[in-house]
């Protein structure tokens, strides 16, 4: 099913998408999208929404099981509190991706902005994974509580730019960040440390990356063919003693 989004107000567009989902559509193709907010929000069924154009902010928020494929760049706040499903972006994306995300996948081909993976979390079988193929801004993995963030630094429009920004992992207290090649330790927050991957880690990571490469038509040999490091929080309660010292 195809919907022409040219000049359509976001509320009307999302109503059209929701009624298409309710009437049992398996695949929805949106063309001429530009800036419409909240696409795919709260969708509970495993439909695939393909987007031509630049979708607006809060793409796939609260999404629960749908798949969104963006064939262009995307903006801020993708996958806010997303529960399950997948967002694939064949370009770059903005700030605050995967905010409080608690399951599912976000696969971005190129650069990402500030505060990516902020407060991602996991519980039992729910384990969100966000992979950025380009470079990242400051506060990568800020307040991260669970799940997996992966930064590749491979597909950037800006070769001059450093692979990641300052305050990497600020307030991180759970979850894992994998970085291809290595990190700039001067830009890490005090709350995190850098570790070697175990064989088990590498196996887990390779699984995520193979899926990423498949979605974005990349050569897994190239993406996987490099050393990765693992960034972990040093404490589960980095600010436990900030205001008043607590007994352990």
């Amino acid at each position: 099913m195809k919907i022409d989004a040219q000049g359509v107000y976001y509320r009307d567009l999302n109503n059209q998408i929701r009624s298409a989902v309710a009437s049992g559509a398996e695949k929805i193709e949106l063309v001429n999208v530009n800036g419409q907010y909240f696409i795919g929000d709260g969708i509970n069924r495993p439909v695939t929404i393909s987007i031509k154009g630049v979708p607006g902010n809060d793409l796939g928020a609260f999404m629960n099981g749908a798949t969104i494929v963006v064939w262009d760049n995307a903006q801020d706040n993708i996958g806010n509190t997303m529960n399950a499903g997948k967002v694939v972006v064949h370009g770059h994306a903005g700030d605050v991706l995967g905010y409080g995300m608690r399951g599912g996948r976000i696969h971005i081909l190129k650069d990402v902005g500030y505060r990516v993976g902020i407060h991602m979390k996991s519980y039992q079988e729910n384990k969100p994974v966000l992979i950025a193929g380009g470079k990242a801004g400051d506060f990568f993995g800020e307040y991260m509580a669970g799940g997996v963030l992966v930064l590749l630094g491979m597909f950037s429009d800006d070769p001059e730019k450093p692979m990641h920004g300052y305050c990497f992992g600020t307030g991180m207290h759970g979850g894992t960040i994998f970085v291809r090649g290595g990190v700039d330790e001067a830009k890490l927050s005090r709350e995190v440390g850098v570790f070697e991957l175990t064989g088990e880690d590498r196996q887990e990571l390779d699984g995520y990356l193979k899926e990423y490469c498949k979605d974005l038509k990349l050569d897994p040999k190239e993406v996987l063919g490099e050393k990765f490091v693992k960034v972990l929080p040093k404490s589960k309660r980095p600010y436990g003693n900030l205001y008043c010292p607590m007994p352990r």
Partner: protein
Amino acid sequence: MKNNLKPTHRFEKDISNCGLTGFISKSGKQVEGSVIIKSISLMHDRGNGLGGGFAAYGIYPEFKEFFAFHLMYESGMALQLTEEYLAEHFLIDHHEEIPTRRNAAITNPPAFRRYFVKPLETAEYREAREFQNMTDEDIIVTHVMRINNEIEGAFVVSSGKNMGAFKGVGYPEEIADFFRLEEYSGHIWTAHNRFPTNTPGWWGGAHPFTLLDWSIVHNGEISSYGINKRYLEMYGYLCTMLTDTEVVAYMLDLLIRKHGLSPELASMALAAPFWDKIDALPEDDRQLLTAIRQVYGSGLLNGPFAILFASNEGLIGLNDRVKLRPLVCATKDDFVYMASEEAAIREICSQPDRVWSPRGGEPVIARLNPGVI
């Protein structure tokens, strides 16, 4: 029992987040107002109808030697007093009502007039030029401050050469319709869609804020407003618009025009890097940035912001140091675009050559090519 308590707040308030957009043709190509209207209208939902505005450069080529004063009047008395003031201090080459169109969405608009002026050679003028080393620009600034501060209900909306600001209470597309902006052409345009957070939504409080040919549109909150305001008062700048953004316009005038800082250095003063980053810089840079932070400690803008500032020299985009507000830039041929959302750029430039998000505190500077003006 009957409850007579009235609620202390109106809880029904459209919560939103401000939007800004702007572009420059570095070779001075004239672009119709309809283009910037299209771009800002795409971000309609970033505002809540309590403020919209535009700045346009290159719109008065026939009067480009004159300071173009856009005046807003809340009363006939304000108009009369201001026109007496202007006649006393200025040679007025031409003056007229700013053309407007009635629009159902715009309620109780103030009156708008524009004046193309040069300072008159009065005794006061000669005193200022000869004995106080003031330039014509300094004298214009003094007059703008006096009109805003001393004439009740009169506000200078803009005062630069070959440029003008158009702003008011309404969504930006409504303000554009009210001021008939599709009838203007310029080579730099900026626009703002307002969601007032802490201050009233009134005609003078809409963006852009201006002084001479500086104009600022801003998304965010300047938490350091009090410090900045007191610092500016020492140099004769008086804040009258009841809104934080006003200090940015005056600060740029002080830093760039008066103190001679480059736009790059002025940006470093407004969004100075943190001390630990400064300490990690090579020695020359470390000393420079240390000096900037020490001298302009009261010029530092604290709080979240994305701003666009324009002048007859060009267009600059700047974020706060930790990028708490969005800003996306793009280039296409000799055009540079800057906006809160990529979609607002793509709406008027579907295939840019390059699109990127600048880092926090890193200014994006697009200057007009030499000789364009």
